[in-house]
């Protein structure tokens, strides 16, 4: 007869407390999850759900904003872009109001006239309409229109 009784103990044993262990692991997962969500919210949305202020909004709360840093959105006014060694300066419009932007740093690839942009920075003073920007972000629209590269270009650059 083989010595199975030495090798295998066949006496009944109590089942391990899987439910209790599972509960603690569940609580652990939920805690980690809550912390991860809070970390993401604190980065993104806890201070403001809006990523930027429009020019109208910024002008109406001009005194409150003062020279604080915030993000401002508007459309780049055509024929006002001046590329400088530090970056670019241009006029930005929103509604019937306009702001002069002096941006430091190189603008994004798609930066051009007549497109919406978001600039991060501050007004030079509480009454000034000059905005010193440290970053330009292009906010492209949701519309996609085909370019026609085969169309004839006039000498002045317009497409026929």
């Amino acid at each position, binding site marked *: 007869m083989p010595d199975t009784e030495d090798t295998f103990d066949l006496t009944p044993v109590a089942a391990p407390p899987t439910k209790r262990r599972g509960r603690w692991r569940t609580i652990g997962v939920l805690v980690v*999850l809550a912390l*991860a969500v809070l970390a993401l919210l604190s980065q993104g949305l806890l201070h403001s759900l809006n990523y930027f202020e429009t020019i109208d909004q910024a002008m109406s709360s001009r005194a409150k904003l003062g020279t604080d840093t915030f993000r401002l959105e508007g459309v780049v006014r055509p024929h006002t872009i001046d590329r400088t060694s530090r970056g670019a300066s241009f006029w930005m419009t929103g509604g019937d109001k306009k702001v002069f932007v002096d941006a430091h740093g190189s603008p994004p690839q798609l930066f051009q006239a007549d497109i919406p942009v978001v600039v991060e920075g501050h007004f030079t003073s509480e009454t000034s309409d000059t905005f010193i920007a440290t970053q330009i972000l292009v906010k492209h*629209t949701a519309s*996609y229109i085909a370019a026609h590269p085969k169309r004839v270009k006039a000498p002045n650059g317009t497409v026929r």
Partner: protein
Amino acid sequence: MIKQLSQRLLGPVTLALLALTFWLGLWVTPPDRIQGNLVRLLYIHPAIAWVGLYVSFGTSVIASCLYLWKRTRSTIMDRVAYCAMEVSAIFITLTLITGSIWGRPTWGVWWAWDARLTSTAILLVFALGYLALRRANDDPELRARRSAVFAIIAAINVPIDHFSVDWWHTLHQGATVFTQNGNFLVHGSMLWTLFLSLFAFTLLFFWLLRARYRLEVLRDQRYAASLDEALAQRRREGVH
């Protein structure tokens, strides 16, 4: 017969439609007036987001609801919910990656903490949390019930993510296809290629779900067989 045929054709048709999408997207459709050739990401990113945020997450939530409802409760629903959430986690990750690749040359940054991007990142955390929650429980019934409840709670974030571009100011663009007034903002062949990509990636989801579901069934069968084998071995050892 029809079921078998459709199951057999699902893979080849999906691959053919994806190939057609890439051919149209890369070579046939024109560049965009402002974005130029960057617009070609339009045939990948929205379709991946559509599958990750709506189709697969939605399938998981519906299957979870059906599991919690006593009349439709079954292991099948639990498996579908689990497999769909796994696919969702992969596609949400791909959504964030392709979005960053698109964002860098257009916006000028890889990432922005706006409401759309942040809520999508939170949705990914929820999907990963769901998968972690399943691993935390050994009891199959308890695991199925808890994860189903969690999936339904996590689904609250889906409409927040979708409407975030309308409710708040975001750097991310507004809706292109599902606009509030029903107008499409994509023109000509670009629009049809976009629709084709949405359809092709939806088929890809069902193909992946089917493959993942079969894998899960095989895993359960293997587990049951190994359990039977272990019991039989134990009995044999006891007999000696």
